[in-house]
């Protein structure tokens, strides 16, 4: 990489912006701790309906918001359904025949604390992307918290293996991504897509994934694609080892698993965008 000329200036600007965000993010730490204990106390101590000011918070700004949060938009279009069902079936078999047995063996070898730390490590690498996307959505506070989380967890959290910022300082991730930013600016899902290996998605979130890839720190180091795929697989196996049983329980108790997963994906993403 060459840091001369305009590139150098951009680099310095990014550094200044990041440190500003870091310090403002860190400043939220104490505030948030207070808020958490206050709100849980308030929730328990409140006898009267919480409709009046106080613990009611922002949701009570107007009457229309009561059910709004529960509203769900119509089912997403699915012009590729035959193909999608094929890939759903493929991914399902992939889970039972490969991912699950591997994740089980993996879980038997590595203790759960270590697997949680590995999960933290991969999660921490997505913090820069989350910071950028929070900023793009005008959430300066969330963005600064992401930057603070990234800096603190990469150092005090030891390369991101520990969630120091979350566990000790109560700095919680906002979990934004590029797909949500596109949604924030009004883009709908367009239509449903099931990718082989990657699973459920839609047009918006597929574009979003490409954006996320550009915001991932791994692009700063020159690695072969095999390494990227290997790391992605490890992340996936590690995550599966921590959530074994959830996929089976949901799909095996649905009448039409394809439809149930499609809807769950749509609702889950819409909820994330609304936040």
């Amino acid at each position: 990489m060459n840091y001369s000329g305009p590139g150098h200036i951009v680099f310095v600007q990014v550094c200044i912006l990041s440190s500003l965000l870091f310090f403002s993010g860190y400043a939220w730490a104490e505030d948030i701790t207070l808020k958490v204990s206050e709100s849980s106390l308030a929730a328990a101590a409140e006898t009267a309906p919480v409709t009046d000011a106080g613990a009611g918070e922002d949701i009570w700004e107007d009457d229309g918001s009561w059910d709004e949060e529960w509203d769900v938009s119509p089912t997403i279009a699915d012009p590729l359904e035959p193909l999608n069902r094929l890939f759903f079936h493929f991914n399902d078999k992939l889970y039972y025949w490969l991912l699950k047995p591997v994740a089980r063996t993996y879980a038997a070898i590595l203790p759960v604390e270590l697997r949680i730390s590995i999960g933290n490590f991969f999660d921490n690498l997505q913090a820069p992307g989350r910071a950028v996307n929070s900023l793009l959505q005008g959430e300066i506070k969330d963005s600064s918290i992401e930057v603070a989380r990234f800096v603190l967890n990469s150092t005090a959290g030891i390369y991101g293996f520990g969630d120091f910022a979350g566990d000790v300082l109560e700095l919680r991730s906002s979990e934004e991504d590029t797909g949500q930013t596109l949604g924030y600016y009004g883009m709908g899902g367009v239509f449903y897509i099931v990718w082989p290996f990657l699973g459920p998605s839609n047009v918006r979130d597929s574009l979003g994934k490409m954006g996320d890839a550009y915001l991932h720190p791994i692009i700063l180091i020159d690695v072969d694609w095999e390494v990227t795929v290997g790391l992605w697989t490890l992340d996936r196996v590690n995550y599966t080892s921590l959530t074994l049983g959830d996929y089976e329980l949901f799909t095996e108790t649905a009448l039409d698993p394809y439809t149930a997963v499609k809807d769950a994906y749509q609702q889950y993403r819409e909820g994330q965008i609304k936040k």
Partner: protein
Amino acid sequence: MRRHIKYIGKIAASLLLALVILVNGEKTPALANDALAQLQESVDAILEILQSEELRTPERKKERNQRVLDVVNKMFDFREMARSSLGPTWNTLTLEEQERFVELFKNLVEQRYIGKIDSFDNQKVVYQKQLIKGDKAMIYTDIVDKDLEVPIIYKLQEIEGKWLIYDMKIENVSLIVNYRRDFESIIRKEQFAGLITKITEQLEKSETQN
């Protein structure tokens, strides 16, 4: 490094514990008619069954599940849930058909959520806030499982002094909406009769597995 991680884990655990204790400590009989108090009471009852060492033996698994279900049955308004999951078809049914469907629906929900009971391992429930409007309430909670936080929002309605759950959102996914779309996809091709057959088969499938 391991020590460091454990240390952080301990801080987190004690913080959470403190929250739970704070919330529970504030509970007084005066709150008996409160939606949150009623939900907490039921959740505490379930946690007590799940944490009981005596009930953990394989021979008593059935009894343990049954005791949890007894509490669950008193928390949910299964008739209302079945009605809204089925959508417009509900009104075309006779009273007997409706009752049969409610029973099947209840078993279907139990099948999905009872499976989670076996994997219970000291998860914590943190109550965030409750919103009340007339006879409706929303309660925001987090289940803390290992290092994952799962947000669950309950929607309750007060019926004769009792708050009953009629929908819940786990990770933003509404249980009712999800079942409605699942049922719709079957009804579209095989009508209501086909739906009944599918649910019956689905319930038999798990019985042979157990």
